[in-house]
């Protein structure tokens, strides 16, 4: 049986090759009258030659992303310095006792910057500061805890601010400042960035020992 099969296969292959050579010009548009099976041999795959080959591909259109490491080191974004027409990296710090008001105000500032086209580098929250209010007792010299006030901070970091745009920007911010909320605009420094991280007393102790 086997040699017969081989002979049949060989003959079919030969026929297919001949047909291929004859039909290469019309291979581009196989229709129902000329079915596709006549143009391929046993070893040749058909679908790579089809005009719809690769029709579903879309990942090659995406921009190439560097592979993300699991341990993402918090890289500090570049601090821009002031130029002739614009301020450098500015930190707009909103602080107050009422968290919802502070958050809504910081969101308003962020939206406003987006509308005006001011680039917002970062928008983060600083850890809240708890202050204990100790009052003196009416009789005696002891102080007792009256209340605990929690101050919340939200920071909107602007990469650059056009000096011509600045007065309009500040005006709108001041007009919309809600009560009980302090607004402060300062320059961004590396110390500000490092203050967001946890203190490492062991590392600092070791460094001090090394320098001794």
């Amino acid at each position: 049986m086997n040699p017969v099969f081989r002979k049949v296969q060989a003959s079919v292959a030969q026929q297919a090759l001949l047909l291929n050579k004859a039909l290469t010009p019309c291979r581009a548009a196989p229709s129902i009258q000329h079915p596709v099976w006549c143009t391929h041999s046993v070893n040749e795959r058909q679908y790579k030659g089809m005009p719809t080959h690769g029709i579903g591909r879309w990942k090659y259109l995406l921009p190439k992303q560097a592979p993300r490491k699991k341990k993402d080191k918090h890289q500090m974004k570049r601090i821009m310095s002031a130029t002739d027409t614009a301020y450098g990296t500015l930190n707009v710090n909103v602080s107050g006792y009422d968290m919802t008001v502070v958050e809504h105000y910081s969101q308003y500032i962020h939206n406003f910057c987006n509308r005006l086209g001011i680039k917002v580098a970062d928008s983060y929250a600083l850890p809240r500061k708890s202050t204990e209010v100790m009052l003196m007792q009416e009789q005696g010299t002891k102080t007792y805890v009256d209340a605990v006030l929690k101050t919340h901070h939200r920071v909107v970091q602007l990469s650059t601010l056009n000096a011509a745009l600045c007065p309009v920007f500040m005006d709108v911010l001041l007009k919309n400042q809600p009560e009980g909320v302090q607004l402060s605009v300062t320059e961004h420094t590396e110390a500000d960035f490092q203050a967001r991280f946890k203190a490492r007393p062991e590392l600092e102790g070791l460094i001090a020992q090394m320098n001794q």
Partner: protein
Amino acid sequence: MTCTLFCSSLYGEHHHLVQSPWFAPVMTLKTSAPLRAEPKKKKKVDPRREQMLRERLKKKLKKLEKVPPELIPIEDFITPTKCLDETRERTAPRLSFEESEGRALLLKEWCRYKQKQHMAEVEAVELALEAQREALEELKLESEELYRAALKPDPLLIPFVHEGPAYTPAIPNYDAPDGKYNDITKVYTQ
């Protein structure tokens, strides 16, 4: 006074005497080097020991530096467990048809009012920017130097601090109670 002088003289003598191993004071145990029959301290071990210490410190430093610094967790974003308690949930109150209708219409009114406000603000900002642009153009035609000076950022602006408006004005001649503020912010260490 005299006893301190005596003591100081003793100590002075003591300091002077201790320097030479032959004249140890009588009160201390006689543990000078020749009595202990100890070989002389080799000088090789000291720098090696110091080097070993330094290497160990460096290794410790490298290990610690490999670990990236962590951000201080912000307690504002962590919902307290009391709020996640399911037993505290209550169902929404049932409203009559007129009530719900009235509320919906009120919401629409409020939307319209806020939109008017927002549009007015956007228009005001655009007008201000347009006016500024025209003024700068005119200034440019007048003198280049002044134009450049106008575009420069103001160094006196930063740092800028402003307190929000108060709900009530300050009470005149108010006698605040005595007390003090204590900062009890939790300090996180890695």
